[in-house]
């Protein structure tokens, strides 16, 4: 599979470039565009001394290129400032909120793919039938729904009215203490399994279901629509007719050849779907009070906590770029045509 070291190095270099670009953009956004950045930075309740201190911290009296230098230097040395709300270093806050978000995103995204790909495939194979129409309808409705609203409705219906599933909190701390659960990776689902702690596992599972479903709605719809149209395209390709005419087994043709041709472009666009999942997860976190980066950033927005806002944005952008790199690598690994 044609993934060479050269390619890897080149992509990593590009990644660094993109990260720099992201940092420069956020720098411009927070220091250059605002007319008086120190006012913004000091916050709405600032006193004169806070504003002066902000000026000093932001090096606003120094030339712009020096400001950029300090900015970049700080980020690359891990000094992302201190959150005004939590009084903790921003980087630390973000990293500790990461597992919660990651767990939610992974479960939600997995749901979207595991249900979405087969559903889209199935629908395309029955093109024009009533079943196809049903799937398309569900998908187009799902793609029209605002995530945060869906999360609210789910929480309302299943959490409050029907009381079927708990809404809010990742884990029942009381139960955790009682059963001697302690986090290892921060991914509670994984940790509870690793410790053989089934009651906690079930508890965590119950609590992640609603948010995960909310997160998965949009990427699921996207995946279904994409897989469906890709499959229709592939089924029209020449090689499908050629192999079929010469006697290949229909099932082999569909589930090996057509499927593989569909999966390749799906993988290529996974990165973007993942991007939507990330943003969706953030809004779901806000609604469900799920202690992840989205919740952290949301709280930061509400309290004008600029270091935290900035740190969250940069982190997510860098993370997203890294994910895209991984996706591209996987795509190149699978598809022998991809030229590097």
């Amino acid at each position: 599979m044609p993934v060479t070291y050269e390619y890897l190095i080149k992509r990593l270099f590009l990644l660094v470039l993109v990260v720099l670009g992201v940092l420069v953009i956020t720098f411009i956004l927070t220091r250059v565009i605002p007319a008086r950045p120190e006012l913004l930075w000091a916050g709405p309740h600032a006193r004169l001394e806070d504003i002066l201190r902000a000026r000093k911290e932001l090096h606003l009296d120094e030339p712009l290129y020096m400001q950029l230098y300090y900015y970049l230097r700080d980020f690359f040395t891990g000094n992302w400032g201190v959150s005004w709300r939590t009084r903790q270093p921003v980087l630390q806050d973000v990293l500790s909120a990461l597992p919660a978000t990651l767990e939610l995103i992974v479960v939600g995204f997995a749901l979207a793919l595991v249900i979405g790909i087969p559903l889209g495939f199935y629908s395309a194979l029955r093109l024009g039938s009533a079943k196809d129409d049903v799937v398309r309808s569900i998908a187009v409705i799902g793609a029209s729904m605002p995530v945060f609203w869906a999360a609210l409705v789910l929480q309302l219906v299943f959490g409050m009215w029907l009381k079927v599933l708990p809404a809010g909190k990742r884990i029942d701390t009381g139960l955790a203490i009682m059963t001697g659960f302690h986090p290892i990776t921060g991914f509670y689902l994984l940790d509870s399994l690793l410790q053989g702690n089934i009651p906690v596992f079930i508890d965590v599972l119950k609590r992640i279901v609603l948010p995960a479903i909310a997160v998965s709605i949009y990427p699921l719809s996207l995946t279904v629509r994409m897989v469906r149209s890709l499959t229709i395209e592939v089924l029209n390709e020449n090689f499908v007719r050629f192999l079929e005419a010469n006697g290949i087994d229909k099932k082999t043709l569909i589930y090996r050849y057509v499927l593989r041709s569909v999966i390749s472009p799906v993988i290529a666009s996974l990165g973007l779907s993942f991007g939507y999942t990330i943003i969706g997860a953030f809004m779901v976190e806000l609604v469900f009070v799920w202690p992840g980066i989205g919740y952290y950033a949301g709280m930061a927005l509400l309290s004008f906590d600029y270091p935290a806002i900035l740190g969250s944005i940069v982190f997510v952008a860098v993370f997203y770029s890294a994910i895209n790199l991984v996706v591209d690598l996987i795509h190149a690994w699978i598809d022998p045509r991809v030229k590097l």
Partner: protein
Amino acid sequence: MRFISYRKIYMAGLAIVALFVIVGILAPYIVTKPEEAWGIAYNPDKAFKPPSFENPLGTDALGRDMLNRIILGTRFSLLIGVSVVFISLLIGVPVGLVAGYFGGRIGTALMRLADMFLAFPPLLLAIAFATILGRGVFNTIIALSLSWWPWYTRLVYIQTTSVKSLAYIDSAKILGLSPLTIMFKHILPNITAPLVTQATLDVGSAILEASALSFLGVGVPPPTPEWGLLISEGWQYISRAWWVSFFPGIAIMISVLGFNLLGDALKEYMDPRVRDLLVKGAR
């Protein structure tokens, strides 16, 4: 047009979009309680009334009629959705044309710039812009447009590079036509099809993103009856008065659905093979 009439569902999409546009334009004139809709008048004694004959969609925390507010909200969604797409096209398409046509260093540089914007997950950049710019309808439009235009640039760039190598472009160059003419009179008409489809779908997406920004508190300010803002206003009382958050969400969903259906119809229409497969009489 005939294609849309082929399938009922696309007719429904067209109908929804038409309704959306009409209501959006006429909204201030058809609301029965304009002061409530604009958020200026309050009726504290009628707060949290569930849906009834008098208030078909209930009232909110300040006693304002939800139906009125939602109808007026249509105007804002229409305004923001269309403006964002329009401005993004205005910026993104020429940049993409130039990048694709000239290629080389200019092209790579422009695309790198676009890539840096695209390195952010959708909406994140808009949130950042919106935070800096502050709340407001105009600011929301700007924030969204600034984060949106690179998508069109990329789309146009890819299309332009593939159209560029067609024979008639070479003939145009030989004839001595200026690059501007070639780009806008020859290349652009050939790539409008996927652009129009994408733009249609994007109006729906813009409405969704605008509502998300408002929900997060960085979009339009209260008391603007923007749908996302209405949802967030009802969030605190959701257990007491679910209708305040519920119905604006339905409004968003139906509007975006209309644009999605219309966009789907266009997509199917553009692809002759799929188009023929779905024709009546096919097995």
